[in-house]
């Protein structure tokens, strides 16, 4: 690890510059349309002397906890002489989301900034709980053109207001075991039919090896599966009542129920159990977030010459995959608006953002993807470049302020179908009965 080396790339902010930026940040926030309470910029504290006092910034970070993030914090503390109180979030996504929802709904003043995902940016942004970040972009001269535009416009903003600056890029790609493929004499599938053929050739149930891993447990993961498969059929998680989506869902279930190229336990598998299975040679393919690549890369049991990835095969309608991100949002009810803005600006810097490669993640700035070090430690970046080059192959999830309700409704009903409790038609009808009014409320 060469974390120390990056310290030289940082540009320390002078105290004068910081004073200026803090004041300007408050002014911008005040000018912005949102009614977020804005802290007065260090009024009556006696200027220079007061600024020398270290301020405390409270942040919450999801989801892993390791040395890399402590490094980012240390760097920030060194540069600003502020103190960061860093809180580990609950690992279960749903619990984490509920925790932040509860806090923000009760006008939390103890959190200044937090690591938010696509859903949270939309839900909390629309609720008015996040500070608009346009002033931060302007203040710190952040070039948003360096980000994948869909991440900025489709999942970090709501109603044209930016509530989050993407930090780590997450795109789903197809992982595979090169040694299994070689052994079976097959090459990466290019469409759904081939996927079944290749999967069948790779599956050896007696040896406990399956062609493809599916993580269909409820609580967000099945929702992503529904979204990427139905999207390739021309549907979406909020648009299931059409032939393409139905075909996709039937195809998905057939993978384990009919073709037996995935284990019967698929409806109960989650990311961590598939990850564990992957480490014990159980799977040959997995369509999953590229962070998984990084997780393997940073794991001691990674076998660099045995795992690679390919772009998703062509579905009935398209060959798209889904993309999203985690990023930093500032809490509107925080009394430390200037500090939160400073933190968001800090994390948006290339040199800071890049440090995510130490957890195997690809930073959200496109200009970093070709960096050799990024390509080495975050091995999915070449594939992201391929996807970008091919053009139009990545699509953000259809995030609206009620996305969690939509996900819940789709997951519950599709899961009932996957576990033989209802028919496909019943599942789709029941899901859309619930989703349609919600969607109307969001968009209408």
């Amino acid at each position: 690890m060469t974390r120390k080396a990056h310290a030289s790339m940082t540009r320390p902010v002078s105290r004068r510059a910081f004073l200026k930026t803090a004041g300007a940040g408050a002014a911008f926030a005040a000018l912005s349309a949102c009614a977020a309470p804005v802290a007065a910029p260090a009024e009556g504290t006696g200027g220079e002397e007061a600024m020398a006092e270290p301020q405390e910034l409270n942040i919450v970070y999801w989801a892993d906890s390791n040395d890399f993030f402590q490094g980012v914090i240390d760097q920030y503390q060194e540069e600003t002489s502020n103190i960061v109180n860093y809180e580990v979030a609950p690992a279960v996504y749903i619990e984490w989301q509920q925790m932040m929802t509860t806090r923000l709904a009760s006008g939390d003043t103890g959190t200044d900034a937090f690591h938010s995902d696509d859903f949270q940016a939309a839900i909390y942004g629309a609720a008015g709980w996040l500070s608009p970040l346009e002033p931060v972009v302007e203040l710190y001269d952040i070039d948003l053109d360096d980000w994948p535009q869909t991440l900025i416009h489709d999942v970090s903003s709501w109603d044209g207001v930016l509530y989050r600056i993407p930090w780590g890029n997450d795109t789903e790609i197809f992982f595979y075991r090169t040694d299994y493929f070689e052994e079976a004499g097959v090459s990466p599938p290019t469409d759904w039919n081939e996927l079944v053929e290749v999967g069948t050739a790779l599956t050896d149930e007696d040896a406990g090896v399956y062609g493809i891993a599916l993580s269909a447990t409820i609580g967000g993961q099945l929702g992503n599966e529904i979204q990427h498969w139905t999207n390739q059929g021309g549907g979406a998680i909020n648009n299931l009542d059409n032939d393409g989506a139905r075909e996709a869902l039937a195809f998905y279930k057939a993978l384990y129920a009919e073709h037996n190229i995935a284990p019967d336990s698929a409806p109960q598998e989650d990311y961590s159990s598939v990850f564990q299975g992957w480490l014990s040679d159980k799977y040959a393919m997995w369509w999953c977030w590229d962070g998984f690549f990084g997780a393997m890369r940073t794991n001691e049991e990674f076998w660099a010459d045995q795992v690679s990835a390919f772009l998703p095969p062509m579905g009935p309608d398209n060959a798209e995959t889904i993309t999203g991100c985690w990023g930093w949002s500032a809490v509107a009810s925080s009394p430390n608006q200037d500090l939160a803005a400073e933190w968001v600006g800090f994390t948006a810097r290339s040199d800071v953002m890049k440090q995510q490669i130490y957890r195997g993640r690809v930073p959200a700035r496109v200009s970093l993807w070709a960096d050799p070090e990024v390509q080495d430690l975050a091995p999915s970046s070449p594939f992201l470049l391929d996807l970008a080059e091919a053009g139009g192959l990545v699509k953000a999830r259809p995030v609206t302020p009620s996305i969690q309700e939509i996900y819940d409704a789709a997951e519950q009903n599709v899961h009932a179908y996957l576990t033989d409790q209802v028919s496909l038609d019943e599942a789709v009808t029941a899901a859309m009965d619930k989703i349609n009014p919600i969607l109307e409320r969001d968009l209408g």
Partner: protein
Amino acid sequence: MFGQQNLSTRRILLAWLLVTPVVLWRLLTSVYPFLRTFYISFFDNSPVRRTFDFVGLDNYMALTRDANVDATLTFTLFFTVSSVALQVVLGLAIAELLNQRFKMRNFTRAVNLLPWAMAPIVIATAARWIFHQDYGLINDIIWRLSGERPLWLVNFTTARFAVTITDVWKNTAFLAVIFLSGLQGIPLELYEAAKIDGADGARSYWYITLPLLMPLIISMIIFTAIFRVLTFEIVYALTNGGPGTATSLLSYLVYLEGFRVLNFGYASAIAMLLFFIVLIVGVLGYGFLRRAWERL
């Protein structure tokens, strides 16, 4: 008896002064919020959408159309009946066991209490691991005995049993302790008389023990049933209400609607439904209990 002339105003005042803290505390933290829940259930109230609009009976109408509510009521019935039945039968058996004289009886009685003392969330979280198809304790044992590895949480019937089993494991101790105490209260002479009449163990259990315990058993059935309807942690940490919504319980639904997606109005309507069910169980149970007492 305590004095007749003591019904003085002073005494009554003192009495009410003494019960006021408890009454007030409960009124503010339980009764008032409950009434308020009833009130909110007539509103579309969401802090996310920033609404507080009167909608009449809309939330209750939505309840009748919500497939989740159907599934939840189905499982509530399954869970309550199966868990209460198992707990009562096993509780009686364990009480009988702990009532015998044997070496290590004190140790066994203490062990019996351990699951009761553990936090429900700990047990529910551990159960997720214990029911895991590949690495779980239960499947390891089943696999050693039969070579099979059932998919507990995939099949909706076995998932329902997994929730029940976890609940029974945690809570049977409580019933066993109460039944044991009931057994100890039965006069030994009754058994001796039965022995003279030539009744064996099973017969005297059937004709003496059970009838005498019956009021206790019935009141425990009511008590246990009410708490089954209110169960939250096991579903929250073990199944997330799945597969599909096959193991969803009303408390969990209130949590989802109320605190995951912040539909306070609709969640309040579900909470009222939950209260209504508890009320029915309580009233029905009270009727049975009275009849049992009368028969005795």
